[in-house]
């Protein structure tokens, strides 16, 4: 009888996962709508960071241009709604993910020919191409004004839920929270399966030793490209879910500082762990929201946090907690 692999024990993970989901499911009944919106944003960014970390944590490629895929998803939704009058969120998701995939496939095809700093610079440059298109072609993209995406025009679950009439925004916030939560669960479980699949192990092998990976038959460039597309699609999905919440998409989300925020979130949570990007995205979302609300020097505050992170907690929140847990003899 073959021994099961040590490492993640599936039942234990399920228990923790279900407990987390239950907490998230009852939370909106206990908190004010503003907090519900904040958590929704956190979940959206968590999906984006999960996608980003498939490249950084598992494939060993630091993308500095993931704003491109987040923005591609967001703009795809805005175009589909404005030009084709699509109102079903499901259709918007399908269209948006396909649109993002096309761009990720194209950009990825170029970028995976390089690694390390060259890869990072290329991803950055290509994302800025999209940004400048959104910025300059104002007759298509609305320029710096961006494009409005009205949540009142939206319908969820095949038209089953819509947001017309009185109290529309409150109903939207409440329903949309569960909608995003459901997709967050789907995204997290999918990503968990991907990184624990033979394909996921191949990516980790490429990360650890590119040359040897080739010599055991792994087609390195093709696998990097696939990882790039999957990563882009996850981040694109986040962009799609983000627009109705924000009500507006502007070139800001295509601009490089937003790519930097995705890096920040992931490093904050810990890119060497699976849950790191999720925790990091939630934490960053709160950190930024309260930093912006409390001081006009919020960038400075974030800078100090980043500095502290790199110097004192290089393994991020989850990595550090895991180390403390190991020291205390838990697990």
């Amino acid at each position, binding site marked *: 009888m*073959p*021994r*099961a*692999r*040590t*490492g993640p024990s599936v039942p234990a993970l399920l228990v923790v996962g279900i407990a987390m989901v239950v907490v998230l499911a009852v939370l909106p009944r206990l908190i004010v709508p503003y907090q519900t919106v904040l958590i929704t944003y956190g979940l959206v960014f968590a999906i984006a960071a999960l996608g980003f970390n498939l490249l950084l944590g598992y494939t060993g490629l630091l993308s500095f241009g993931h704003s491109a895929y987040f923005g591609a998803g967001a703009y795809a939704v805005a175009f589909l709604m404005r030009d084709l009058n699509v109102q079903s969120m499901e259709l918007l998701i399908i269209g948006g993910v396909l649109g993002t995939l096309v761009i990720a496939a194209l950009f990825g095809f170029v970028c995976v020919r390089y690694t390390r700093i060259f890869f990072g610079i290329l991803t950055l440059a290509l994302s800025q191409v999209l940004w400048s298109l959104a910025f300059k072609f104002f007759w298509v993209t609305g320029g710096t004004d961006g494009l409005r995406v009205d949540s009142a025009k939206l319908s969820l679950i095949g038209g089953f839920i819509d947001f017309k009439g009185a109290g529309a925004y409150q109903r939207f916030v409440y329903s949309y929270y569960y909608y995003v939560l459901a997709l967050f669960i789907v995204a997290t479980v999918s990503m968990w*399966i*991907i990184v*624990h*699949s*033979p*394909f*996921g*192990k*191949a990516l*980790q*092998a490429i*990360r*650890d*030793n590119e*040359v*040897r*990976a*080739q*010599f*055991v*038959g*792994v*087609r390195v460039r093709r696998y990097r490209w696939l990882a790039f597309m999957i990563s882009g699609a996850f981040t694109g999905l986040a962009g799609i879910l983000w627009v109705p919440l924000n009500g507006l998409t502007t070139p800001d989300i295509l601009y490089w500082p937003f790519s930097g925020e995705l890096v920040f979130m992931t490093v904050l949570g810990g890119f060497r762990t699976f849950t790191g990007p999720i925790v990091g995205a939630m934490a960053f979302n709160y950190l930024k929201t309260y930093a912006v609300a409390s001081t006009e020097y919020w960038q400075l505050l974030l800078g100090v946090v980043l500095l502290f992170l790199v110097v004192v907690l290089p393994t991020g929140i989850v990595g550090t907690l895991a180390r403390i847990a190991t020291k205390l003899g838990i697990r």
Partner: protein
Amino acid sequence: MAALLQTIDLKRYFGDTRAVDNVNLSIAEREFVSLVGPNGAGKTSLINVISALLRPDSGQIIFRGKDITRFSVTQRVKAGIARSFQLVNVFDDLSAFENVALVIFSREGKIAHLGALAHLDTDVITEADKVLDHFGLNAKRDAIARDLAQGERKLLDVALAYALKPKLLFLDEPTSGVSTRDKGQIMDTIASVVRGEGITAVIVEHDMDVVFKYSDRIVVMTQGAIMAQGTPDEIRMNEQVALVLLGTSGPDAFTRKD
């Protein structure tokens, strides 16, 4: 006996340095061949060219009757050529088990599977455990590769090449950097696995005791070219070889301890 591998006028220069200089090497099926020669003789370069880590400047490589000169690394792996490395080349952040399992997934064409969880495939698990067992690594199954001892890492490196079930296996100094005591053990392990499975093996080795003990045939290289080849007994008697390898000659050059 038909040659499994044949190189025809294989050439690779680095500027003026003739790393591989018109090498015509033929390896028969199930042979255990040692490649010896002083440092810089071109042994590793020759293996690099045959395994596609380096492109040849000219010449041909024929493997099982097919010209594979233009094949990429992964195509050659698929054709049945595997190798280990002089400096340990494993997946440092994966466990010993995961290292081997990955190779089996790759060999079986299952590696592109996104869905199937890697730790649920019982066929692969069984085989990976068997490979670890062959190489005496089962006690370290779940240890991260980076935490293994140098000798164990060397064995894991060889195990990765072996797990591809190659027709032809190149081992580039499998015992370098390990203690003399472990050396014999590693070589015994490798030889028994290779002979047991009927794998054709080409090994680069400096320790002449090891070379004489395990080889069917010894190929001596200097300055990128083959200067002599033959059975261990023929090489032992060859005074020119002794001069090149040891700097001394005489009938008992290889056994004299001084």
